[in-house]
């Protein structure tokens, strides 16, 4: 049994608005549940980032999520958005929960990369740092999934050091091929080769990080990269919007979509696919 993403939701992305992260998260969760055709009462699990200001034990008070029986968190960094899907998939596959919501919101500004890190990356810019917004996805077991559901074909995590804090250790991890090895294992477990990937949503458009991810995931020429790039919202909200874009791409006809988090910190990726 595998898991499927059955609903997505997000708030408008803003900058400098007088809005709280819990309010944005609640709005995104409500939107994702509407998209999935599910009610608050049906949700029995949530996964979040560990520094997300709205925790699972806040949710009953904020939006009457009274039935949470499985909940967990991944490291709060833009490498971890796909890891939320990996975690939710695990919960679904183990039968720990039936309707799992993955959510993330932020209302504060994310600090820009340190100059030293920028320089080590070849001066690549990291746009989308100032976005406020919320994103949420709803996951269920594939058997129970409805039309419009997007299958989770595979996933990976790799606990590489933070480039911002330990640049030398991060470079050592790259030299050791930690991320590319994990990517190979993900492809193999899913029975997919890089040439099968129709579209890749990579954190962060269109900068230097995309080049690292192209190498890590052995992307072929035919793979469309970041179709959502160019707009001010693209790749924002710690990579959450990349997940939503990949779901939209599969719903729109792509057969295999890759989503990869930032390769500058503990990172992760998922392969999403069409039902057929």
């Amino acid at each position: 049994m595998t898991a499927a993403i059955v609903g997505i939701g997000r708030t408008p992305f803003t900058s400098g608005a007088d809005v709280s992260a819990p309010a944005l998260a609640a709005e995104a969760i409500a939107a994702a549940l509407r998209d999935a055709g599910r009610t608050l009462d049906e949700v029995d699990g949530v996964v979040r980032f560990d520094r997300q200001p709205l925790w699972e034990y806040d949710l009953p008070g904020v939006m009457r999520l009274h039935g949470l029986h499985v909940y967990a968190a991944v490291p709060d960094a833009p490498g971890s958005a796909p890891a939320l899907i990996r975690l939710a998939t695990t919960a679904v596959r183990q039968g720990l929960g039936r309707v799992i919501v993955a959510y993330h919101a932020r209302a504060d500004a994310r600090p820009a990369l340190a100059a030293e890190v920028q320089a080590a990356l070849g001066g690549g810019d990291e746009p989308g740092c100032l976005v406020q917004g919320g994103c949420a996805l709803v996951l269920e077991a594939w058997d129970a999934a409805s039309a419009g559901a997007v299958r989770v074909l595979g996933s990976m995590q790799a606990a590489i050091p933070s480039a911002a804090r330990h640049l030398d250790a991060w470079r050592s991890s790259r030299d050791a091929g930690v991320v590319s090895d994990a990517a190979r294992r993900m492809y193999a477990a899913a029975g997919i080769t890089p040439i099968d990937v129709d579209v890749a949503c990579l954190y962060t458009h269109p900068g230097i990080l995309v080049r690292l991810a192209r190498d890590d995931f052995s992307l072929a020429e035919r793979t469309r990269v970041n179709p959502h790039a160019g707009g001010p919202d693209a790749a924002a909200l710690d990579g959450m919007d990349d997940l939503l874009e990949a779901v939209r791409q599969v719903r729109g006809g792509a057969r295999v979509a890759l989503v990869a988090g930032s390769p500058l910190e503990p990172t992760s990726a998922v392969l999403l696919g069409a039902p057929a």
Partner: protein
Amino acid sequence: MTSMPPPLPAPPGPDTREFWDGCRRHELRLQRCVDCGRARFSPRPGCPWCGALRTEWFTASGRGRVYSWTVVHRPTLPAFESRLPYAAVLVQLEEGPFLVGQLRDRAPDAIAAGLPVRVVWDDVAADVSLPHWRPA
């Protein structure tokens, strides 16, 4: 050591600003769910009763009853030493929500559950007022 200033609440955020602005004007501003009509406290973006996210603010009556209390004999902070002993009360408002505060103008050993109280305001800083309680 009674000159120690009292600790102040965390600076207001988007969800709590209306409440603290109301306190400064000596108005008890609460949220009410537009969908199910129930009042709630503390301020937050959605309704714990029905889950709806549409919210309106209203000014509460400032009346309620003591639901429970405890008498503080030892200060956790020096700023509260001059008030000892004092009663920290949990008040259920007429509108339903619960608030915590100090009970003023009543000896701590003369409190009973159900005691009718009304809000009094303590201007603890130029721009910060806190709701406390006294017998109605």
